[in-house]
């Protein structure tokens, strides 16, 4: 397929399919995330990138033989590796015997959350999640460093968004619908944010949805309008604040005599402490993810103004 547009759309469908596969596999949280990321954000980013760089691929392939050899060695090795693996779905595989049982049996008492994934994510392996937030933050900073329009070109910025120009001039219905939709999306984001303890969802998914609302607004009403509503520096700092909030919770627990990210010491009652801690760090995650997504999108589409 040479048309990158089609390729990206296919990728979106692939993302959606794998998300539904995750549901089948009982991984609802992951499915939620994959749907918002694989089918949503990443498709959107790719589309923007494609508009910026040109739609058609050259079609030349490089070293296909070499690639095939590498690919087949890798694949062969993997197949070889799978031969001794426990069968798919079998309950007596080592992973179900060691470590995981404690999460399933004790997490309710230890963290007070019914969603095991959330309690593992935010508490048992909270440091991984902190790392994850930092990864997103890093990506945001990286994109800023790469795509910020700054003193590189001294031209005064033209506030015209040609990609979406036609759209927002003509599609009145769309605009009205969007206006109605956005509050609901934001509300939904908040729901996902705070409901993550009980059902699927959490800071990351909420952040993505929140960002989606803003991106939708920008797409329909134009970047310049969106910019007027939303301050970019604010988002930059918000992303930092999210990380700091997360880290801050850790530091506070440190100061309270516990280890880093030990929520037990945040309140008198360990479970309450866990609850508070998880709530706060999920909020931190939400802040960073949403603002980084917005930053990334704005920088990508803002690039269009300077060919």
């Amino acid at each position, binding site marked *: 397929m040479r048309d990158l547009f089609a390729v990206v759309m296919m990728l979106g469908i692939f993302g959606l399919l794998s998300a539904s596969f995750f549901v089948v596999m009982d991984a609802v949280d992951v499915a939620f995330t994959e749907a918002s990321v694989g089918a949503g954000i990443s498709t959107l980013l790719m589309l923007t990138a494609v508009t910026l760089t040109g739609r058609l691929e050259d079609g030349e392939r490089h070293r296909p033989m070499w690639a095939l050899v590498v690919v087949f060695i890798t694949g062969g090795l993997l197949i070889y590796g799978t031969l001794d*693996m426990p069968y798919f779905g079998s309950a007596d595989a080592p992973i179900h015997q*060691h470590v995981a049982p404690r999460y399933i049996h004790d997490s309710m008492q230890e963290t007070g959350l019914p969603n095991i994934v959330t309690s593992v994510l935010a508490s*048992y392996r909270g440091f991984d999640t902190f790392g994850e937030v930092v990864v997103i933050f890093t990506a945001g900073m990286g994109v800023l460093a790469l795509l910020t329009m700054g003193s590189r070109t001294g031209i005064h910025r033209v506030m015209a968004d040609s990609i979406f120009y036609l759209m927002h001039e003509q599609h009145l219905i769309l605009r009205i619908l969007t206006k109605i939709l956005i509050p609901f999306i934001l509300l939904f984001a908040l729901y996902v944010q705070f409901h993550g303890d009980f059902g699927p969802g959490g800071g990351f998914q909420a952040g993505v949805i929140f960002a989606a609302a803003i991106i939708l607004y920008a797409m329909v009403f134009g970047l310049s309008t969106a910019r007027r509503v939303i301050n970019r520096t604010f988002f930059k700092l918000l992303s930092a604040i999210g990380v700091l909030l997360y880290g801050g919770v850790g530091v506070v627990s440190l100061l309270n005599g516990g280890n880093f990210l030990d929520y037990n010491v945040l309140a008198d009652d360990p479970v309450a402490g866990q609850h508070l801690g998880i709530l706060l760090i999920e909020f931190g995650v939400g802040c960073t993810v949403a603002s980084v997504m917005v930053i990334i999108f704005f920088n990508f589409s803002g690039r269009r103004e300077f060919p």
Partner: protein
Amino acid sequence: MLIQLPALAVILPLLSAPLCLFLRRSLLAWLFTVIASGLTMLVSITLLQQVMASGTIVYEMGGWSAPWGIEYRIDKLNAYVLLIVSSISTVVLLAAHTSIEKEIPQDRHTLFYVLYLLSLAGLIGVVITGDAFNVFVFLEISSLAAYSLIALGEDRRALWAAYQYLIMGTIGATFILIGIGLMYQMTGTLNMDDLSRRLPEVAQTRTVFAAYAFIIVGVCLKVALFPLHRWLPNAYAYAPSVVTAVLAATSTKVAVYLLIRFTFSIFGISFSFTTVPLQTIFVILGLLGIFAASTTAIFQKNVKHLFAYSSVAQIGYMIVGFSIGTTTGLMATLLHLFNHALMKSALFLALGAVMYRIGSAQLSQFQGLGRQMPFTMAAIVAGGLSLIGVPLTVGFVSKWYLVLAALENGWWPVAVLVLLGSLLALVYVWRIVEAAYFNEPPAGRGAVEEAPLGFLIPVWVLVTANIYFGMDTRLSVQVAQAAAQSLFGVSP
């Protein structure tokens, strides 16, 4: 507070990064970064002292005991690598303010420092953690920051280099992820210590073999082991000078650390060296790397490229030492980690000073610099001598142990080849020396001043360290020896 030190080592740079974003002024951001990195260095020095005095430190993140939570497990090996990473980063940072002033647009200075801190935090996180998956997360932090930092280079080729690095790095990281998954599949745990206890039971399965293969290949991509080194030369050559200095000195070192950690601690010596034909493969690749990369280095026109290829060759030495599979061999590798970090940071920083003055690192532009920038060029010569392995420099110490290890093991052809390899280093270093000292400055280049103090001080700190640790090896040898012995299960 002392028991919280392991956490501090990571969260100091990690939380400084977002804080740094609030600082507008370049100078302030720089000072802030230097302080953060310096404090991290102090923390790692204290950690090393503690570990040497009282043994392994275990720190449970979030208060959850392993293997349920993530733990930090600091033994002699990672305390040693921590010190390398944090100290080199701090010294190199001293030059950052002067250097990026010319190389990076004003409005990105703060971002540069944020990314720098993130990269540092990522590397430290990789080194300090005792959890296999946590390694992956922090590896990605440091890598993403590194890609962005490289892309900040002035030349447009920096972008292309960063992109290639991104692709290779991501493939490497994903391979590691597959490997971790396979290991997890067989043992049900992600904790390294736990893994090392549970893996031997299942060591004979094909799955564990595949896990090992994927992890090793993935890590080797990050290590830039020949022939997986293709991303490295351009990335080093076009990145901003400070970034090159710090990446060359730390990031591949951390990857080598991972290789050692996975091979010795997690999979265990008996698995790595008997079940898998690792030794043979590594020794061949290491030697090939030394010769191929050194030879390529000789023909480079750009000095940054030259030293980048030299880095690939030096990695070959580390791999050879490691593959000998004895305490002395591992010790040689560990020593070379430290020593090579000192040499390459000094060299690349000195090159940065040259770039700062003449805006180019082409060999032809080096003509006559011996007279025009005497201190900078003297530093390059000193670093070069260290690279060759002349006595009284650190390079000699690591070469000594490497050859010793090979001979003790009866691998005399390896010893000979290692020594011959350093002769190639002589050739490429001397090309620079001759250009700088025996030629008149090229026509059309105006007067060139000596580099500013912002460069000279850190460069000479590093050069002095190169010589000091070449003469007084107590610290490096003791720690490296203790670390190597502990990995081999010998009580020191």
